[in-house]
């Protein structure tokens, strides 16, 4: 009677992780058993299909889910967030790299999007631990970070512009804006907390005002009255919120450009601070 190799043994053999004690037996069996050779080849074809597949897009709402899982960890001083702060500060010791952390969180989401295979619900700790190890060099990661923050601010701008300029109270358009606001508020909170922790009060101020408005939009009742909507638009306008977001977004684009130009020569040439909070009229 022939004792064929089990699927588990074939998998471990494929990985090159057969127990040392079993290795001679497995190798010897595979050297002559056509049936197991065929089974092994089939296994290899399937696994290679997975390994050569392109990353897939994350499902809608993934960003919000990631935030929900990250949020509890932000409260713990020993958590991922603080480790990132420490690591960032150790690397360059400057304001710039510390603030880059803000984008780091955004990039956590962004790179997780790119590694879309995580999109189905990996526990937060695993996602957090796994995402930074995508193999990007530090300079590339910074580029991704700034691009991700810039992307968030651009999307926020678009949403606010539509809200201020359109009659979103009609035909359920406000519900759409609420969903967008709800998605944006999560990442905005991460960036704001990061900016605040790194001592960048100017940026944190803008993001705090922005968060308040986004929350107000997201949590508004479904039957919001035209008067309430008008009040909201007035507050956005009175705070110059759109202008201030635009300033930061523009700065992020500049940084992304500078990062690209800096290439592998590091980020030491980028030392400018973000513009101060413009006076509220």
């Amino acid at each position, binding site marked *: 009677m022939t004792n064929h190799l089990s699927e588990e043994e074939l*998998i471990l053999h494929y990985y*090159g992780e057969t127990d040392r004690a079993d290795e001679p037996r497995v190798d010897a069996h595979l050297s002559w058993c056509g049936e197991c050779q065929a089974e092994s080849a089939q296994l290899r074809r*399937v696994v290679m299909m*997975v390994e050569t597949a392109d990353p897939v897009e994350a499902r809608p709402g993934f960003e919000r889910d990631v935030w929900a899982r990250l949020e509890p960890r932000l409260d713990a001083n020993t958590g991922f967030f603080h480790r990132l702060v420490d690591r960032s500060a150790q690397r360059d010791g400057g304001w710039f790299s510390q603030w880059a952390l803000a984008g780091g969180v955004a990039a956590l989401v962004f790179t997780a999007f790119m590694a879309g295979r995580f999109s189905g*619900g990996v526990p937060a700790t695993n996602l957090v631990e*796994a995402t930074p190890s*995508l*193999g990007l060099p530090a300079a590339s990661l910074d580029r991704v970070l700034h691009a991700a923050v810039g992307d968030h601010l651009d999307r926020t701008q678009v949403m606010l512009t539509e809200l201020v300029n359109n009659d979103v109270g009609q035909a359920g358009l406000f519900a759409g804006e609420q969903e967008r606001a709800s998605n944006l508020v999560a990442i905005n909170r991460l960036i704001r907390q990061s900016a605040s922790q790194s001592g960048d009060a100017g940026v944190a101020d803008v993001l705090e005002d922005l968060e308040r408005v986004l929350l107000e939009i997201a949590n508004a009742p479904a039957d919001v009255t035209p008067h309430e909507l008008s009040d909201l638009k007035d507050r956005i306008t009175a705070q110059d919120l759109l202008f201030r977001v635009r300033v930061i977004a523009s700065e992020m684009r500049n940084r992304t450009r500078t990062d690209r130009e800096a290439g592998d020569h590091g980020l030491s040439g980028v030392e400018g601070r973000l513009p101060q909070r413009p006076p509220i009229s």
Partner: protein
Amino acid sequence: MTRPTSSRVQGPLSERGSESQPTPERVAASTQISDRVNDALGLLTALERAAFTLRHVEGMSIEEVGAKLGIKTSATKHSIFRAVKKMRNALEPFVEAGL
């Protein structure tokens, strides 16, 4: 014995470069494969998916995957075994069809 087809040998996908310019047919096939793989990954539990992905995309060893996920090596093995079994069941028809 070396196994040149193993992801451990080849390294993570993120480190691989494209050797040639993709043709439209190749792009279309690649999209189809990605869809199939994504559907199959959807059949896994969160733990199975995490273990499988860390092993095959990140190229970690089983022991490293276990450390990353905070579970014992034996539990990691079983998660990966279950994941591979499910992936095989889901993808073998497409492999045999030459997709």
